[in-house]
């Protein structure tokens, strides 16, 4: 069968449009140019569609006819479809059967700057309130834990501890070792100039134990566990599992958020301690392998540089970071919308919120520790 064709034939004020050939979406949709040109040639008050030579057809024909209808409506022309195959007429009738719902097509309004700033400010205020309310509820939930009235499954807690602890070891090992290695390299280049290579041990030891162990573990856990929490809770929201808990009188915060917070609060200090050791080993690899320091000298130097205060401070920070990551992950998960893309957004927001919270907390701790002389 030949390709789609449209021929015009004038009979007085009636324009006959002969639609023929095979109409296929893959071959494209013919334009209305020739029809519009023909309209301009003389007075027309009626367009008669003739489909005697029509072969196979699909949506390309229907789309063409919809366009034609629109053009004829503009020119106030009567369209006679009786010459078209029944299937085409029925589908066109079906497309016109339900009128467009008024207001369905939202008009794009270009709002002035102030009109956009206002709602954005109110949204930010509401988000802030929501965050504070969530932190408050989480605190109350912790209170219920200590009074023994918080309801959650102990088996869930153990699973979360395993996920946030043992299962995180490989990535924490890799990142911490590399951070220790990088710190040592950066230090070695400078310190070697003064013949003070041994102080690489001090640099790596103090940096890892005091700051980097806790912070890098926090960032890894934000991307790994915080994101997972947001995705889990977001998916549960989509499938109405959280609603089901609420209707049974079980507080979702106790049942879902509390065990996750406890798991991270317990595991983060341990992971941080582990990251400190692995980071120091990473530094030692550079010190011993590249700077020709003896293992004993490196150990003794590290031991002398790192104090219990550094260690306790770092572990305390890690605990706080753990709670922040759990709070951010769970908050974003609980705030998630009811679609798969909303879960994706919640996951991204959880990671961003966690990392921002960790960096801000790190800054606050730096000032606080300086003031307290730790």
């Amino acid at each position, binding site marked *: 069968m030949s390709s789609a064709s449209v021929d015009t034939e004038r009979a007085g004020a009636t324009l006959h449009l002969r639609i023929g050939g095979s109409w296929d*979406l893959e071959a494209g949709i013919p334009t209305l140019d020739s029809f519009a040109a023909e309209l301009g040639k003389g007075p027309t008050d009626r367009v008669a569609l003739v489909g005697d030579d029509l072969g196979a057809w699909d949506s390309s024909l229907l789309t063409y006819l919809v366009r034609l209808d629109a053009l004829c409506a503009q020119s106030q022309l009567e369209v006679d479809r009786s010459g078209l195959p029944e299937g085409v007429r029925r589908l066109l009738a079906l497309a016109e059967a339900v009128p*467009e719902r008024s207001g369905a*097509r939202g008009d794009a309004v270009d709002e002035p700057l102030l009109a956009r700033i206002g709602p954005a400010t109110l949204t930010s205020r509401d988000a802030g309130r929501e965050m504070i309310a969530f932190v408050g509820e989480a605190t109350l939930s912790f209170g219920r834990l200590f009074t023994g009235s918080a309801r959650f499954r102990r088996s869930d807690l153990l699973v979360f501890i395993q996920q946030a602890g043992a299962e995180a070891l490989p990535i924490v090992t890799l990142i911490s070792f590399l951070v220790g290695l990088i710190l040592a390299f950066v230090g070695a280049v400078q310190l070697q100039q003064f013949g003070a290579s041994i102080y690489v041990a001090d640099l790596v030891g103090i940096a890892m134990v005091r700051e980097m162990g806790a912070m890098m573990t926090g960032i890894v856990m934000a991307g790994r566990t915080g994101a997972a929490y947001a995705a889990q809770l977001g998916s549960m929201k989509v499938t109405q599992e959280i609603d089901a808990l609420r209707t049974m009188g079980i507080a979702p915060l106790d049942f879902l958020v509390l065990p996750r917070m406890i798991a991270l609060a317990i595991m983060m200090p341990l992971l941080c301690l582990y990251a400190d050791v692995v980071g120091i080993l990473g530094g030692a690899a550079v010190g011993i392998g590249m700077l020709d320091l003896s293992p004993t000298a490196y150990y003794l130097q590290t031991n002398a540089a790192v104090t219990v205060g550094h260690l306790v401070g770092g572990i305390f920070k890690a605990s706080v970071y753990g709670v922040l990551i759990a709070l951010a992950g769970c908050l974003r998960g609980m705030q998630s919308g009811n679609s798969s893309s909303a879960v994706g957004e919640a996951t991204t927001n959880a990671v961003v919120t966690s990392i921002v919270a960790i960096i801000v907390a790190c800054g606050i701790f730096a000032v606080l520790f300086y003031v307290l002389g730790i």
Partner: protein
Amino acid sequence: MGEAHITVRNLTMAYGSFVLMRDLDFTVDRGDVFIIMGGSGCGKSTLLRHLIGLIQPAKGEIWYGDHNFTAAEPEEREAMLRRFGVLYQSGALWSSMTLAENIGLPLGEFTDLSPKEIREVASLKLALVGLKGFEDYFPSQISGGMQKRAGLARAMALDPEVLFFDEPSAGLDPISSHLLDQLILELRDSLGATVVVVTHELASIFAIGSNSVFLDPGTKTMIASGPPRELLAHHDDPRVQEFLRRGEKG
């Protein structure tokens, strides 16, 4: 007897060593509205997933016309898949895309239409299912029934030869369900498409079904086939009668 469009030969469906259904043999004629029916969990949706190639049969073959779908090479299989339209139980619209984008995606992938033309075709498809003007809505902004209709518009995007419906009435009120049934019939009549519907809704079965197969989880095979009203009137198996008579009693 019409021209055979889909032929299922000696089909066995299994998950690993667990056989769900065996020895399924039936033919769907071109232009039929074919119902796959049976109680919950009998394997209706699994059969549909076999028919659309999401699961490979443990044994047996599925033919579309004179093409063996089961043994088709990847390229031939892809070309055959393009002639299918599927409406999933939940609508399965892509939530990050507007309705027009949902419908436009397959058009953009498999035709050379310009973005403007794709938009026009998408608008037409939405108008066919009564959603004119909703092109720029996201799935989350419309009701469940509208999502179903938008899913149908997407299923029709490439003017399929076969339309598959998985529980089209699920989650719909009786009026919406009835309207969807009418729409299915209208599309079958005007497009000349073959329609395969998985359902256990008796109202739909009798309203739209021109032929059917009844799956029985007990014997793990089909125990009846034929037009639903004929099965109701003449089939003597008590399981078929019990299933089909619920509607009369209720």
